[in-house]
């Protein structure tokens, strides 16, 4: 290696330090800690505890359920809305892109607060509808499972639309005309042309939504605290307040959460490769 190359390596040093100190070392340490028993010896104790404890199993199940439901509803709304946005004229399209872009930053604590203002116990809509004599919201409790889903769906939608718009731009109007000219109807156009083109984008977006809601912490924390059993909230309650109660257990839960996300992204990669051979 020439001398200048050796000097050049110095330029990589800050990057190496930052990445090691704040990314790799913590991750490796977390994996290592997860394989430690509470007495400090190597063991699978933490994982055995997690998978034999109905409480943690329920947290995993709840997290998966809430992610799947919110991602599914959001992708349907975003697919329809995104298509409509892509069919607007240029100016209206721009306005909508701006609205979705800006609202996609609306999540976490501010979002939870806004929903409390609207749908909480004394929320604007809650009061409005009860005055109008409609008791749609009398059964509705924002600080519960259904409330969480409503809020999760809300923050997934603009996010999903932003992801889907480039895919829709690839859908040329000319193809539809061509399909019509060749005798196809609207249904056959979507089955043979529209959906096959959109599918990779939709599936890709769907997995990202899943991962996004699996790891979401702030929104749920603000709405339900630790009263609802979700995996990120359980991890949070183990490490909150800077007092690290059970570092080994928390580490193992973190590994489990990361693994679930990796599996989701891996399935995504497999499916994408199946549908889009042009990626290879």
């Amino acid at each position: 290696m020439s001398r200048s190359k050796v000097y050049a390596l110095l330029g990589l040093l800050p990057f190496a330090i930052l990445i090691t100190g704040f990314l790799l070392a913590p991750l490796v340490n977390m994996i290592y800690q997860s394989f430690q028993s509470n007495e400090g010896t190597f063991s699978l104790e933490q994982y055995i505890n997690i998978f034999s404890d109905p409480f943690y199993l329920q947290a995993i199940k709840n997290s998966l359920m809430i992610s799947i439901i919110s991602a599914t509803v959001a992708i349907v709304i975003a697919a329809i809305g995104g298509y409509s946005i892509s069919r607007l004229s240029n100016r209206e399209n721009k306005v909508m892109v701006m609205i979705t872009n800006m609202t996609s930053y609306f999540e976490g604590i501010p979002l939870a607060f806004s929903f409390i203002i609207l749908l909480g116990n004394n929320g604007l809509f809650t009061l409005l509808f009860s005055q109008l004599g409609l008791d749609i919201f009398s059964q509705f409790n924002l600080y519960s499972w259904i409330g969480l889903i409503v809020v999760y769906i809300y923050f997934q939608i603009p996010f999903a639309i932003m992801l889907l718009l480039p895919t829709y731009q690839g859908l040329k109007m000319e193809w539809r005309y061509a399909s019509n000219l060749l005798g196809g109807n609207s249904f056959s156009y979507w089955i043979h042309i529209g959906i096959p083109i959109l599918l990779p984008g939709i599936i890709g977006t769907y997995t990202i939504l899943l991962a996004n809601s699996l790891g979401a912490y702030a929104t749920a924390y603000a709405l339900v605290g630790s009263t609802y059993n979700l995996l990120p909230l359980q991890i949070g309650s183990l490490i909150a307040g800077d007092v690290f109660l059970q570092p080994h257990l928390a580490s193992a839960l973190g590994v489990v959460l990361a693994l679930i996300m990796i599996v989701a992204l891996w399935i995504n990669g497999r499916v994408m490769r199946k549908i889009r051979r042009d990626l290879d």
Partner: protein
Amino acid sequence: MIGKRKHLFIVILLSIYLLLPLLGTLLYSLADKWSDSILPESWTFSWYVMLFQDTRFLEALSRSIFVIASSVLISLVVMLLAMFVVVIYFPSKEKYLKLVSMIPYGVPAIVSAIGLLNVYSSSSISIVGTPWILIGSYAIIIMPFVYQGIRNSLYTVNAVELIHAAELLGATKIKAVISVVLPNIMKGILAAALLSIAMLFGEFALANLLVGGQYETLQIYLYQKFSKNGHLTSAIVISYYIIIMVVTGLLIQFQQPGIKKFHFAKLRIPRFHKSQIQKKRVEGDIR
């Protein structure tokens, strides 16, 4: 055309849905008395006046600005250095830089918080509860976007050829980078910075878990005020949101026509995913 009207109808419904929580919060922050009517009985600015007279709020805001500015600056400088070294001296190793830079994108905040607490709450380097751990971890979470932004603009301006040309004209590599390449990719760097700022302003998980009340940032302050006074909290949320709007508005400025080839145009897609989409396009462009 009936089809067009249908799309317009769907889009209007969608935008009402998306804007409703914001509008509700805005009304609430401007309402004086609002108990049992559809619209507030009287309006007031006093919640905002109260908020901006609250030193605790101003301190939290300046703490947030300090942490975000430092981490964005660190991330940019570190990534620029690494990128130039790799692009100039080790172009074949670029995929490793990319791989490493993209890892944070797949690690949720709650997971990285565990590892960070494991490492930094121990005796030797105990920076838990200080802004330094936040700055370090923030610099990491924006890394994928900083990487994408810088890399895309380097390719857009043909950085390697620019450097070769400057060297032919007698400049050293460092001079070529500083006086030729950097000015040309400034827009890309600024766009990456703005995107990172918008993302970090909303960050709560790491702030709460690593530092909490010991170093109260804007989001922590907001959470503390959460259940106290609804009107005041609404004013905080709206102020926070105005910051985000200004930052993303500036970001959109960078995406105006005239710089069509500019790859940040695709960065309108926020967070997480945009890198994936961009990735494909950029690779296609290079080939």
